[in-house]
């Protein structure tokens, strides 16, 4: 169960190799969380994480999760619940970033990215929501991106997939009010991870650890939307309303 300070006792991570999700899980485990299931495409890829969690006394396991296989998502959720009981939290942490120039050249690759980031979030998010409704509690943590708040010429495929996911997650959150379940949106800015290696960092670039701190803090304060770092909330209130010519100039950096 979730406690008064936003700590949970069990978590399922879809996209179990996400560095942001791992930083969040580390903090949950340091508080009350004793059960973790990592949803990953290939369980072998999570061995190190699994061992680390287990040696910290956590009951940790993996389930096979492929964002590109929506038909399996309900089963994945059930398998996780079978393994650890009530799911106090489900983190939607999977996603691909891709390269805009490559997407321009290969529309099919762009469509695949959309299938992972958006379609996958829709099917797994709804499957998780159905489970949490019957439990009468639990939280979906949807990790979107500030890139979805306003699309940029140099990453609008990624941005638009995250915009879709973000809108979906907000609506899902509203639809869950009254059921005991919740959906919280996390909007990180530019994060230094494997995914962004070699890219030019955007202003207020941050790290998985800092994002995780912002998330834990937001959960404790019962926030429905968590910006990480929090300053981005203010920044984007302005950026969102800039005239497009100006936005083009600024976002081209």
């Amino acid at each position, binding site marked *: *169960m*979730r*406690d*008064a*300070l*936003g*700590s949970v*006792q069990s978590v399922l991570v879809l996209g179990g190799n996400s560095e942001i999700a791992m930083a969040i899980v580390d903090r949950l485990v340091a*508080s*009350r969380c004793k059960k973790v299931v990592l949803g990953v495409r290939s369980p072998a890829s999570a061995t190190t994480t699994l061992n680390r969690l287990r040696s910290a006394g956590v009951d940790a396991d993996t389930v096979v999760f492929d964002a590109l296989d929506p038909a399996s998502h309900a089963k994945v959720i059930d398998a996780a619940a079978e393994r650890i009981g*009530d799911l106090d939290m489900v983190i939607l942490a999977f996603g691909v970033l891709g390269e805009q120039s490559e997407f321009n050249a290969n529309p099919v690759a762009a469509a695949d990215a959309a299938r992972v980031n958006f379609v996958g979030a829709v099917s797994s998010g709804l499957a998780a929501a159905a489970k949490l*409704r*019957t*439990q*009468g*509690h639990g939280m979906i943590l949807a990790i979107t991106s500030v890139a979805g708040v306003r699309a940029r010429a140099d990453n609008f495929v990624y941005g638009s997939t995250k915009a879709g996911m973000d809108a979906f997650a907000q609506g899902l959150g509203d639809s869950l*009010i*009254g*059921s*005991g*379940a919740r959906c919280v949106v996390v909007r990180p800015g530019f994060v230094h991870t494997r995914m962004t290696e070699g890219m030019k960092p955007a202003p207020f670039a941050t790290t998985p650890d800092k994002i995780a701190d912002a998330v834990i*803090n937001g959960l*404790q*304060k*019962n926030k429905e939307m968590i910006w990480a770092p929090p300053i981005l909330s203010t920044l984007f209130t302005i950026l969102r309303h800039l005239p497009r010519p100006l936005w083009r100039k600024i976002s081209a950096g």
Partner: protein
Amino acid sequence: MRPEPAASRAVPSTSELFGWGRTAPTGADVRRPTSPIELQRALPTSFERGLIARGLGRSYGDAAQNAGGTVIETTDVAAFTIHDSDPNSNTVLVTADAGASIDRLLHALVPQGLFVPVTPGTRYVTVGGAIAADIHGKNHHLKGSWCNHVESLHLQLADGSVVEVGPDRDSELFWATAGGMGLTGVILDATFRCPRIGSSQLVVDTDRAADLDAVCELMRSGDHLYDYSVAWIDLMATGKSMGRSVLTRGRFASASEAAPKIGADPYVYRANELVSAPPFMPAGLLNNLSIRVFNELWFRKAPVERRDEIQSIPTFFHPLDMVRGWNRIYGPAGFLQWQFVIPFDATSTLTTIVDEISQSGCTSFLAVLKSFGEGNPGPLSFPAGGWTLALDIPTGIQGLGPLLDRLDDLVVGVGGRIYLAKDSRVRPELLPEMYPRLNEWREVRERVDPNRRIMSDLARRLGL
């Protein structure tokens, strides 16, 4: 009679429930039986996620919630009988449905020269909630907790059968129900002893204490002279005034003592809510500074020493009830209450804890300090001989989790415990240390509910 403030629902017309602290709401199928028969039909439940009874929802955390299961709100089944008695006996028997509130009881009892055996800091609790939490009041040092005054009760078990238990009838089950947080079954009604009073007023002495040592010393040396005693302590004061307090103690006045204030009828009783807290509060209204200022004013306003002041029951026992819905002032993140008891010989730990809280700069309104008498046989009953301290804290404060975890360790280290009716965050692994007779309680539960049909969020969270 005017309607009682209903048990809180997060969103009206849905089945989301939370406790008084407004944290961690969960959804349930909420039923409100309107007759004893309907109430009894609630069990047995076939529902996989079980059932829990709920009174007025004044427990702070998740004790009266059951995510995904059924919650039975008892407050519409609220009749009671005041039995005839020998005028020479000090007490009168009352039989009340579990859903009857102390508020309703007082409206009937006080005009007849009677009072409840124990009252918490709010009168909006039900008899069922009073038993399930084995509540204590300002008279614990002399009279013990609520269940010390219960003769018998009817309990509906998970299989649907109804049993009558008491200290002399299946006492194991009775004491497992006392403080058992509703997990042994649904209490249907109870018969308990109510004391006679000389008037509806109290004779109250107030003492201002400059620091923690001073207030402890006043209580140690003088509490036995008063029927009721409690201290309000300012946990935001640091340095030399750390633990500064206002101690109020009293007893019921005789008719002649009360007459100058209330006139000929010694038992007039008026208990009204004066104002209502606004329904929505912005986050951050209560901040470190505003509370510090409030505490300062409050301390300065108290007399250094005042004797024989005549006060009404609501003023003396239920000052917070004057503001309806005051729990909303903490804003969207809600708040929690942390209450522990530690033995008297661990007074230095009390000092350490008060010091830590004061130093942490963690925002807290006045906290309540009291010295408890001995506990009763209930394995999960909270009170035990020693100091008890209760404080409300907004949940948004950074570092609050680790701070309270550290303080829990101090409490456990000296053989103390925290109060489950107030809890919303303790580490489950500490429970067996805090309640060393937990296994005894579990055996009784195993006997009456082997399939865990009775279930609450608290039970799930703490793995009870």
